[in-house]
C-alpha cells in the first residue's frame, strides 16, 4: 500500500517511537500508599516509590493523598534526601517512602520527581521490571495480528488466485514470526529476573516454542517445494490457514488451562485478556500499552510492505530471466 511509502507514515512512526521510548524509560514509577505498606509488611521491599498530591506541610512532615484518595503522613527524617520547604499544597510528588508499621506512617527516603507529566503505575512485585510490559505484551499482540493478516491473505489467494496475495501472506507470516521471536526473547529476559531462569519449559514458553516451530515449517515448506509456482502457493496457503488454527489455541488457551507461572495461568486472571472480559491493569498503564501496540503495529506494517515489494521485484526479475 502506498501509505507506507509516504513521509507522513514515517513521521508518525518516528513520533510513536519517541513517545514509546519516553513512556518506557523516562516516566517514574509511582505507586500508592497501600502498595508501600503492603510490600513492606509482606517483606518484598522496604522502600517503594509513591505518587501523591501534597495536602499540607508542618515542621517535619507532610500530609499527602495518593491517586486512590488514601491519605498518608510522610515524615522527613535524618536519612531523607530533600525536604518539603519548596513545595506547595497541590503539587504532585513522586517519592520513595518507607512504611513504619508502629506509627502507621511513612518516612521520606527521596523525592524523585515533582509534578511529572506521566508516571508508570506500580505493578506489585515487579518494580522496574514492569516496564517490559510495554515491549513484551504488545509484541505478542502484534504477532497474533500478523498471523491473522497472513491467513486472510492466504484465503484471498485461494479465492482470487492472485500471486500478490501469496507474497503478502508470506511477508505477514514472516512479520508474525519475527514478533513472536521478539516476544519470546523479551519474555525470556523477564523470566530471568522474575522466575530466576531464562527458560524453564513453562506451558506458556512451550506453547510459544511449538508455535515458532509451526511457522518455521511454513517457511521450510515454501523453500523445499519443487512444484509449479501456482501449486506451491496453493499448498503454502492451505498450510498457513491450518497453522493459524493453532495460534489462538497455543497463544491463549493452553497457557490458561494449565498450571503456569505466567499471568493468566492456573486459573488466575490475566491482566489484559481474560475470561471475565475485564482488564486488571491501571488505566494509565493501559493507555501506554495501546500506544506501544500502535507503534509495533506500524513497524510490522512497514516490514510487511517492504518484504512484499522485495518479493514482487524478485518475481519480476525471475520472469525477465526466463
Amino acid at each position: 500500500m502506498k501509505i507506507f511509502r509516504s513521509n507522513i507514515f514515517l513521521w508518525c512512526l518516528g513520533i510513536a517511537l519517541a513517545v514509546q521510548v519516553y513512556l518506557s524509560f523516562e516516566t517514574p514509577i509511582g505507586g500508592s500508599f497501600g502498595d508501600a505498606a503492603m510490600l513492606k509488611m509482606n517483606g518484598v521491599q522496604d522502600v517503594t516509590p509513591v505518587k501523591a498530591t501534597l495536602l499540607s506541610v508542618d515542621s517535619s512532615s507532610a500530609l499527602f493523598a495518593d491517586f486512590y484518595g488514601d491519605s498518608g503522613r510522610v515524615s522527613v527524617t535524618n536519612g531523607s534526601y530533600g525536604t518539603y520547604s519548596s513545595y506547595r499544597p497541590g503539587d504532585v510528588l513522586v517519592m520513595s517512602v518507607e512504611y513504619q508499621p508502629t506509627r502507621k506512617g511513612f518516612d521520606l527516603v527521596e523525592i524523585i520527581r515533582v509534578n511529572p507529566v506521566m508516571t508508570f503505575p506500580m505493578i506489585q512485585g515487579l518494580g522496574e521490571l514492569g516496564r517490559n510490559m510495554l515491549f513484551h505484551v504488545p509484541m505478542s499482540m502484534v504477532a497474533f495480528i500478523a498471523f491473522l493478516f497472513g491467513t486472510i491473505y492466504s484465503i484471498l489467494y485461494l479465492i482470487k488466485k492472485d500471486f500478490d496475495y501469496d507474497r503478502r501472506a508470506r511477508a505477514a507470516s514472516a512479520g508474525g514470526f519475527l514478533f513472536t521471536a521478539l516476544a519470546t526473547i523479551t519474555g525470556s529476559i523477564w523470566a530471568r529476573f522474575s522466575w530466576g531462569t531464562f527458560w524453564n519449559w513453562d506451558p506458556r514458553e512451550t506453547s510459544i516454542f511449538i508455535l515458532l516451530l509451526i511457522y518455521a515449517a511454513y517457511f521450510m515448506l515454501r523453500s523445499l517445494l519443487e512444484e509449479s509456482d501456482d501449486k506451491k502457493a496453493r499448498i503454502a496457503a492451505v498450510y498457513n490457514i491450518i497453522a493459524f488454527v493453532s495460534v489462538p489455541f497455543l497463544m491463549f488457551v493452553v497457557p490458561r488451562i494449565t498450571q503456569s507461572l505466567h499471568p493468566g495461568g492456573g486459573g488466575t486472571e490475566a491482566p489484559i485478556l481474560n475470561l471475565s472480559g475485564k482488564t486488571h491493569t491501571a488505566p494509565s498503564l493501559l493507555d501506554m500499552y495501546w500506544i506501544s501496540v500502535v507503534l509495533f503495529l506500524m513497524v510490522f506494517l512497514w516490514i510487511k510492505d517492504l518484504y512484499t515489494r522485495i518479493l514482487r521485484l524478485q518475481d519480476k526479475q525471475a520472469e525477465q530471466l526466463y
Partner: protein
Amino acid sequence: MDFLQHNALYVVGIISAVIWLGLFLFMFGIERRLRKLEKES
C-alpha cells in the same frame, strides 16, 4: 562501573533507543533502495 549501576535504567533506555534508531535507519535504507529499484524496473 558505579555510574552504570546507579543509572541502569537510563543505560537500558539509551541502548534500546540506539537499537531502535539502527533498525529504523536500516529499514529506511531498504525503503530508499526499493523505491529506486521500483522506478528502474
